[in-house]
């Protein structure tokens, strides 16, 4: 089955990105297709290659980045929400790309299910 994922919060203040990551990972392990993970609102902060979590804590930017590359999953960051929050091409972690908000609607059209994670 085809899933689209929307992440509305950054990797620290809320659990949204953790839950989205765990869900996405489990879905891939079960053989489902992830059409796209779209990052909106403060969710764009999940794509920042400047983030350096404590060494004994999980690193969600790295986890998403690796998942995106290993499973060839599109990790799309809303360009206008990102611009406001300081996300540019230069500080995107590998595997993430900036895109228009239309790609969120596209994810809804192309997916059998869209699942939203937020605060």
């Amino acid at each position: 089955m085809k899933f689209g994922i929307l992440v509305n919060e950054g990797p620290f203040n809320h659990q949204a990105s953790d839950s989205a990551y765990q869900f996405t990972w489990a879905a891939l392990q079960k053989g489902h297709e992830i059409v796209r993970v779209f990052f909106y609102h403060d969710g764009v902060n999940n794509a920042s290659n400047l983030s350096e979590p404590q060494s004994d804590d999980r690193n969600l930017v790295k986890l998403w980045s690796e998942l995106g590359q290993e499973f060839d999953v599109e990790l799309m960051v809303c360009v206008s929400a990102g611009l406001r929050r300081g996300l540019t091409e230069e500080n995107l972690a590998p595997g993430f790309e900036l895109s228009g908000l239309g790609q969120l609607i596209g994810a809804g059209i192309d997916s059998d299910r869209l699942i939203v994670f937020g605060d």
Partner: protein
Amino acid sequence: MTDETPEEFEDDEYVGVVKKFMFINRKAPYGSIYGHEMQETILISTAFEQDVSVVFMDDGVFLLKKGHDTATINMKNVSPAYRAFKGYDIEKLYVERESLDARGLSPNDLLVPVEVLSATELGDLMEQQDIIISA
């Protein structure tokens, strides 16, 4: 309202696919950005010619309250974008009756015409959707 114009998505990739999209607004304006940024999602969706419904419930009904004056908090007023919805053919606007009643509000307090649904009717409408985006 948005940095992107809907026009830039007018390609042929999605021609013919029409899904029922519902956008649900449940949070008050200004205290958080969700309603405001959701406006951009709703406007962009019009370029894809989908069957779009927009719901206001819980404190989301305050997004449509008449008379927002944001000058003294120095934030952008969300009202003009809702008034512009009609021009983008976004006409299916729903408000939950229970949310209005609990706040002592009536449809006359709202700045655009809406259809008022009971929680049960709203639940039935939600069940008909293909994609629900909430914030």
